[in-house]
């Protein structure tokens, strides 16, 4: 059974600071996804990481994947208020093709002035 755990679950940051959200998964996974959810809204896809060592960046967010450590990170650089949201990572059990994602608990990020 695939389990996905994120930490921290709550993150309060000051604008301009850097921080990292960690995502650990328990068994072999083919792909790792990061999603963002704004309050009252649905989930928006941020990144898809397909292989060991994959790194993707979009603005102040950078995601990486280490399949040997079964770890993905979402790094926030020079946080701004607009990044306040809940961030989810999700993994797919290795060898499956139906796109059945297992999600972490979510990290609620609040960026303060």
């Amino acid at each position, binding site marked *: 059974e695939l389990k*996905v755990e*994120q930490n921290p*679950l709550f993150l309060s940051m000051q604008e301009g600071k850097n921080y990292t959200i960690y995502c650990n998964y328990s068994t072999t996974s083919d*792909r790792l*996804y990061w*999603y963002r959810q704004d309050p009252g*809204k*649905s*989930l*928006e*896809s941020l990144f*898809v990481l*397909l292989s060991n060592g994959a790194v993707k960046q979009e603005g102040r967010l950078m995601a990486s994947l280490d399949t040997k450590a079964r770890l993905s990170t979402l790094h926030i650089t020079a946080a701004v208020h607009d990044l306040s949201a809940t961030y*989810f990572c*999700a993994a797919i059990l290795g060898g499956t*093709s*139906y*796109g*059945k*994602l*297992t*999600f*972490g*608990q*979510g990290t609620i990020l609040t960026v303060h002035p």
Partner: protein
Amino acid sequence: DVKVTQSSRYLVKRTGEKVFLECVQDMDHENMFWYRQDPGLGLRLIYFSYDVKMKEKGDIPEGYSVSREKKERFSLILESASTNQTSMYLCASSLLGGSYNSPLHFGNGTRLTVT
């Protein structure tokens, strides 16, 4: 853009009622999913379907059933609603394997309250 539409944004139902949650996608996706989202638990998969009339149980199928009579439509059914089914329900769709990096596309969610 892919559009996944859930028929209701908010629903309030009584214990014991039969509840139907409807989801329609417009991108000819083979895969469709129903998740429920609860604080501190993330999203948990209830059922998914990879083809018309095909369905597979997810991690928490108890108390739910699904129907997929047409490719674009996937319905979640609560046979006899209970208060512990009060939650946010999210429908999603994706391509079947063909696009290896295809993420799930989510609807806006249905917030169900069972009283």
